[in-house]
């Protein structure tokens, strides 16, 4: 099997898995208990918090452990919205291609009376700091822009956006779920006020994540019911998961440059090879993208049938077609970079990790063109494109 869906989730690293099992087995007390067993868990948690802070360039008291990226995004946005409302500021700046954890929260806030500006991301999938600056108003209470896009992998100019927000004194949140462990992050240097991350995107376990919130910026809880996480997130801490997350992130951070160079070389071979398929196009900027992200549109075919046939060939991938999401419209990300609907239905996302090999790339480069040709062979759209009844869009 070739696993090429690392943006969906990653396989746990052996060290992280070992740390999770060891902690769950040995340090199983409740960190809130005052006896030794509980205090050992509290110490393990404190240690994990300090190590996580160090990786992000933050302080330990600025790290809050959560259940994952979605919760972190929800809390960051809700908290800033509430803070803004107290000052009569109910305007938020974001982009059109955020993750649904951000977009759906913003849609809900719109129903609650907030106003949201969704900045365009252009055909390359990148928003400019100038556009962010221009969108900020006196009543803006939050700018929330993802670090790297989960579908097309484009990396946003986060440091520059952070500087713009800091100068305007507007809190800046970034959903760094796809970026953490894969690209360098320094919250102080990049002027990030809030940052979300999720363990399972960097070889940690599913169901655990973190939210960084800068000292001085109030953070309201999303989940009430206890004094955990300094009253910001109730619920007995998932110590084993948290320690496994930190172990995985440390490992990824230590090897970041080497991993990125290797994965990027695989990615670029895939991009070169798939570009040879007629009437195909890479989605998103070719340079400013995550080391492991490949995302293509192929004209005349539909993504789900492509995925099913790739699965038959032992290749795990994903698509932004409507049929794979169970919805009517294809991916909002592909529509945001102005791919027409009919083209967006034929998308393929391959996301690599350092565990993929040159042989994996060889196999993918054999199978994808073969399957695309096969599906085009009985596609009425392709027949119309070939006969000239329909104009090529790619």
């Amino acid at each position, binding site marked *: 099997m070739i696993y090429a869906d690392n943006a969906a989730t990653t396989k746990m690293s052996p060290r992280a898995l070992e740390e999770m099992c060891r902690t769950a087995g040995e340090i199983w007390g409740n960190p809130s208990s005052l006896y030794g067993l509980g205090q050992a868990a509290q110490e393990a948690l404190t240690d994990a918090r300090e190590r996580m802070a160090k990786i992000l360039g933050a302080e330990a008291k600025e790290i809050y452990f959560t259940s994952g990226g979605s919760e972190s995004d929800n809390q960051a946005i809700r908290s800033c919205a509430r803070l803004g409302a107290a000052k009569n500021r109910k305007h938020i700046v974001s982009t059109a291609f955020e993750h649904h954890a951000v977009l759906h929260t913003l849609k809900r806030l719109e129903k609650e009376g907030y106003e949201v500006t969704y900045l365009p991301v252009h055909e390359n999938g990148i928003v400019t700091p100038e556009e962010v600056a221009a969108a900020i108003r006196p009543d803006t209470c939050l700018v929330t822009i993802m670090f790297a896009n989960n579908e097309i992998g484009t990396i946003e100019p986060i440091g520059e956006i952070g500087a713009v927000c800091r100068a305007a004194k507007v809190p800046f949140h970034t959903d760094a779920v796809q970026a953490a462990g894969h690209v360098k992050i320094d919250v102080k240097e990049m002027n990030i006020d809030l940052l979300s991350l999720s363990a399972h995107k960097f070889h940690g376990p599913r169901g655990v994540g973190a939210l960084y919130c800068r000292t001085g910026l109030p953070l309201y809880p999303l989940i009430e019911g206890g004094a955990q996480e300094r009253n910001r997130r109730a619920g007995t801490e998932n110590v084993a998961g948290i320690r496994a997350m930190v172990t995985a992130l440390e490992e990824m951070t230590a090897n970041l440059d080497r991993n990125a160079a290797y994965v990027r070389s695989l990615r670029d071979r895939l991009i070169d090879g798939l570009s040879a398929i007629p009437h195909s196009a890479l989605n998103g900027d070719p340079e400013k993208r995550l080391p492991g992200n490949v995302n293509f549109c192929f004209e*005349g*075919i*539909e*993504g*789900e*049938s492509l995925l*099913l*046939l790739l*699965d*038959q060939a032992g290749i795990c991938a994903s698509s932004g*077609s*409507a*049929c*794979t999401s*169970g919805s*009517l419209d*294809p991916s909002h990300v592909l529509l945001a970079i102005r791919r*027409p*609907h*009919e083209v967006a*239905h034929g998308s393929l996302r391959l996301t690599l990790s350092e565990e993929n090999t040159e042989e994996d790339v060889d196999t993918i480069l054999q199978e994808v063109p073969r399957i695309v040709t096969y599906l085009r*062979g*009985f*596609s*009425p*759209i*392709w*027949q119309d494109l070939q006969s000239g009844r329909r104009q090529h869009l790619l």
Partner: protein
Amino acid sequence: MALYSEKVMDHFLHPRNVGVIEDADGVGEVGNAKCGDIMKIFLKIDGGIVTDAKFSTFGCGSAIASSSMATEMIKGQPVEKVMELTNKAVVEALDGLPAYKLHCSVLAEEAVKAALKDYFDKNSIPYDPAQFPDAPSCASCEMH
């Protein structure tokens, strides 16, 4: 894959009656590229019997499987019988489809009927227009 029944996977992986019939007696095309599925069905009709049926489909696994199954179900059948084809029958023959994929079977029924209508029109065969409601493919897809 648990998403689809074995029957669906069989018809998706080994679709029957793929292709075009150049001198077809009836051709029906339904669906919309924007919605992500187009089905085109070609019929050869001789003496009131569908002697051959072929399809071209742009769409997901269940759209391809539905086209394959529908063409299998109508081949060798008299036109009157083919007129009675329902999406429900296609779904049953496929051992079910996930709820959000049911419109693929609707498309198959519509494509077959559009091909029959084309045949009736070309041969000036009278029919009740009520039997061919304007195939509201996009609208039907928006309903669920």
